[in-house]
Each structure stands twice: as C-alpha cells, then as structure tokens.
C-alpha cells in the first residue's frame, strides 16, 4: 500500500466545494441582520442555550483541535486522554459554581479588556487588548497549516505548493463571510458547521473502530507497549522516535493552561458575553462538558487507531517516517506526524463518505477561524484603537473591525507559511496562549473577587505574561544551548517556563496590588 493512497476522488472534491459555496451564501445573507455594532460583535446578545452550545462547540471544536488531539493520540496514545478529562472536569466545576463566568457576564461588557477599563483603567485596557491580540495571532498562526495539512494528506496532494494554495483559499473564504456578516454570520454558519461536523465525527469514529477493531485498540496497550499512564515521564512506546513524555510537571502546567483557557480564552469568553443572561452563561459551561470531552477524546481515538494501523503495517510506517525526515530536510512534500491521522483516514473511509467527512472537517476549520478573526479584530477596534483615538461612531468601528480582520488574515498567512514548530502542535498552542492567559487569570479573577486588586498590579500581571515567549521551542533551545556552552548540566523544559510565567504574573499582581493600592476617592 502506498503512503499517499487515498479513496478521495473528484466526487469528494465536488461535495467539499458545494459545502464551501453554501457557507458563502449564508455569510452574504446574514449581512442583512447586522443593524449596529452590538449585532456585529455579539449578535445583539440574543443567543439562547442551544444556539450558544452549537456555536461554542463549533468554535472550540476546530480542525486544529482535531489535528493536535489526533497527533497527541498518535504520539502519546491513551495517556494523552488526560486533557479530555481535564476539560470535562474543569467545565463541570465552572458550570456548577459559575466561577468567573457568572460575574463576568453580569458586568455586561463586550470584551474582556473593556472589563479592565471598568475595573482598573483605560491604560490597562489598551495594554490588555494588545497582549491579547499578540498572543491570539501567534496562537492562531499554525491553524492554517494544520488545516491545509489535513486536506493535502486526505486528498493525496503531495506538493507543498498545494498546501500554500489551499491555505490561502481557505483563509480568503472565511474572511469573506466573516467580514460581511460579523457575529450573526458566525452564529448561523456555526450551527450548520456544528451539525455537519458532529455527524462527520461520529461517522469517522465508526469507520475507525471497525477498521482497527477492538483487538487493534487494546493491542496498542499490550503488544505495542503504548503510553497509558500520563504520570510517567518517559514515553514507553518504542515504535515512534519522537513521542515525547508527559509526567507530573506537564500535568500541572496543562491543568493551569486548560483551566484558565476554559474561563477566559477570548473566543470562549465572547460566547459568555453574547448569551442572554448570567444564568445562560453558567448553563452553557455545564452543558459544554459533553462536547468538550468529545472534541478531545474522539480525535485522540483516531490518532490511537492511526498508531495501531501503522504499527501493523511496518513498511508503511517506515515510508511515513522517511517522508517526515525528507520534509524536515527541505523536500517538496510537507509531512509531519500531524499527517498520520488523515493519511490513515484516506485509506479506510470510502469515496463519497470521505467527501462528507472532509466537508465536516473544513466546517470545523471555518467555524474556528471566523470566530477567532472576529474576536481579535473586535479587540483591536474596541480596546486598542477606540480608547487611543476615539470617540468613534458605530459605522467607523465596524469599518475598522473589518480592516483589522484583513490585516490579521495577512499576518496569519505569512506566519503559517514560514514558521515551523519544533514541538507538537498542542504544546505550541499552550505556550503561545500562556502569554495572554498568565496575565488575564489574576487580573480578571482578582478584579471580580478581590477588593484590593489594583491598577499597578494589573500592569505587572499583563507584562509578566509576556515572559511566556521564553517557553517557545526555538528560545528554549537557545537557553539550553547557552547552558550547555557554559557546562551547566541543568536543562530548561517548556512546562517549567509556562509555570514560571503564571507564577510571575500572579505573584507580581498580588504583591504590587498590596504595595501600591489604587487611590480611593474621599
């Protein structure tokens, strides 16, 4: 069997293209429902629970989530399911208690930085908005590449040029309908995308389980010595050369990142702020436990099945690993371990169904991109441009949001084309997300629950989050090379840097707030 063998045919392309055109029509149609800025940014705060659930799931269950979860499933097998357990447990806790999200919705702000201004100062708002956009765009930087890698692997297109053309095309499509219809367009397309994606995920899971079988899945743990216990630091699987370990440090770091992201990641928070009331916000989190568990667990299962498939096809595994090496050495095809899952699906799902599944995955890609683009560009307008150069009328604000969306799109394309991650995709996302999350955690939680939370403390916390840049792969490599050149045996790992960033921000916030409290009016 050839590595790029696929059941994807012209019929599958037709299905995908028809689906894409439908999304464009919906986006154009939704434009008629945008009456003012609130409609454009938060759909006039009209979301009820089912629609909110569909759009929250559509946004957070992106193709990038599917890709990084499947990559973890392939590299770390069952042990990587700890992330699914984390998300479900934390969402359940937030949904039951309403921690942060209930009070945040009560403030009736449009964005998190707007809350910074109400609680602290305009300067904190501008700084917080800037950090949020920098972190968000860096975080989104590899979405395009992951999406295109899925499409090229599943359709059998091997040339890196196709990867670039597909990246550009997908981005232009999402930009088109999001710029036109804003959040109204996002909500309607998210609902369609949620249904297409949801059915697609269940269909894929059915094919995956029947292709590998119960024996194949259990043999991952027994015959192939797969990774089962996430508290182990070393990855016992000898089949893959680059299957990183997890261990207590990474478990702690991921707990911090996942918990904070669930409450305060801007795209999720924008759903919290778009719902009708604080009670709906709380309910949204409670009910999101199920889709968030599934968004991690099902793609991990596909990755585990891909591992099992390659383990039982040693020739194919050898070809795959050669292709990864050749790609890393500058070959024409772009292949990494992210490609394992789509290469596997391309061989087991029949023609026609493969087109529907691919349309579902493209739906996942678009539903994440549209929300993210709208979210970051909304922050640029509301929290950076308007406070600095305002006052601005609503027409101008919508125009600036649209321009910001175009600029961010161009940056994503540029970043996606040249940046190569040296870690797995999820680690990259956790690290880039930390730049924002480490600062927002103390600033928002402190602001909502601690009377002595102060403006200077907020500045320190937000700037402290920028130390998260030190956890990026190339910078860690440089730090370690420097340590090695000075014959110091210590080696820095990214989980240590991420925890350090959270520590710097939170401790800095508390200490500075206590030492330099805000002046209260007499």
């Amino acid at each position, binding site marked *: 069997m050839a590595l790029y063998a696929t059941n994807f045919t012209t019929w599958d392309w037709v299905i995908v293209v028809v689906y894409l055109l439908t999304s464009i029509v919906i986006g154009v149609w939704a434009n008629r429902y945008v009456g003012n800025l609130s409609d454009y940014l938060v759909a006039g705060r009209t979301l009820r629970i089912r629609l909110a659930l569909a759009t929250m799931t559509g946004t957070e269950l992106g193709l990038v989530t599917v890709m990084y979860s499947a990559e973890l499933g392939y590299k770390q097998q069952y042990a990587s*399911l700890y992330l699914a357990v984390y998300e479900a447990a934390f969402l359940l806790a937030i949904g039951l208690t309403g921690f942060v999200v209930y009070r945040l919705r009560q403030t009736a702000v449009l964005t998190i930085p707007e809350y910074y201004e109400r609680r602290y100062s305009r300067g904190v708002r501008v700084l917080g908005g800037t950090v949020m956009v920098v972190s968000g765009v860096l975080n989104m930087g590899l979405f395009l590449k992951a999406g295109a890698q899925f499409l090229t692997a599943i359709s059998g297109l091997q040339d890196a040029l196709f990867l670039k053309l597909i990246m550009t095309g997908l981005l232009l499509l999402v930009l088109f309908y999001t710029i036109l219809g804003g959040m109204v367009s996002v909500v309607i397309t998210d609902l369609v995308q949620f249904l297409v994606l949801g059915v697609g995920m269940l269909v894929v899971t059915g094919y995956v389980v029947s292709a590998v079988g119960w024996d194949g899945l259990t043999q991952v743990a027994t015959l192939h010595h797969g990774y089962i216990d996430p508290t182990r630091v070393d990855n016992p699987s000898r089949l893959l050369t680059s299957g990183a370990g997890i261990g207590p440090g990474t478990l702690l770091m991921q707990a911090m990142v996942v918990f904070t992201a669930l409450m305060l990641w801007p795209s999720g928070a924008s759903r919290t702020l778009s719902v009708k009331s604080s009670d709906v916000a709380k309910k949204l989190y409670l009910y999101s436990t199920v889709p968030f568990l599934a968004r991690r667990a099902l793609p991990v299962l596909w990755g585990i099945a891909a591992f099992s498939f390659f383990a039982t096809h040693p020739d194919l595994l050898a070809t795959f690993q050669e292709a990864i090496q050749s790609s890393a050495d500058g070959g024409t095809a772009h292949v990494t371990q992210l490609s394992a899952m789509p290469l596997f699906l391309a061989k087991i799902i029949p023609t026609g169904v493969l087109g529907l599944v691919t349309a579902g995955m493209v739906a996942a890609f678009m539903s994440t991109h549209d929300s993210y683009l709208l979210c970051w560009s909304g922050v640029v307008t509301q929290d950076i441009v308007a406070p600095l150069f305002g006052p601005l009328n609503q027409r101008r604000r919508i125009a600036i949001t649209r321009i910001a969306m175009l600029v961010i799109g161009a940056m994503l394309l540029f970043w996606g084309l040249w940046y190569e991650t040296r870690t797995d995709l999820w680690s990259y996302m956790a690290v880039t997300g930390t730049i924002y999350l480490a600062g927002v955690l103390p600033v928002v939680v402190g602001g909502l629950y601690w009377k002595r939370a102060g403006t200077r403390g907020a500045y320190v916390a937000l700037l402290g989050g920028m130390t998260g840049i030190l956890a990026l792969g190339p910078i860690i490599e440089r730090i370690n090379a420097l340590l090695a050149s000075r014959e110091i045996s210590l080696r820095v790992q990214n989980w240590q840097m991420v925890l350090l960033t959270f520590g710097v921000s939170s401790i800095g916030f508390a200490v500075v707030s206590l030492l330099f409290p805000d002046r209260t009016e007499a």
Partner: protein
Amino acid sequence: MNGWMILWMVVLIGSVVGFVGLLLLVGFGAIGELRQMLDELRADTRAAAEHPEILDEAT
C-alpha cells in the same frame, strides 16, 4: 486491563454517547432559537434604517 485502561475506555465510550445526545438536543431546538434570534435582530436593523443617525453618534 489495568485501572488506567478502564478509565480511558470509560472516557471514550462516554464521549461517543454524550456527543450523540448533544447532537440530538441541539438539532431539535436550535432552528427555533435561530428564528427567534433573527426576529430580534430584525428589530435592530429596522431601528438602524429608521434612525441612521444612531450609527453616527461617537462613543
């Protein structure tokens, strides 16, 4: 099968069953909610059309 594998199997099976339930829950009610949302938004677009000066007020 050890304790970890039992946990992971429960997580995987729970995900599939829960996701099916969610699709049914959302699928059978979201269209009605979408209609309500569009009706409410129509009021905004009407107000913007009747009073375009609102959009020109600087805030």
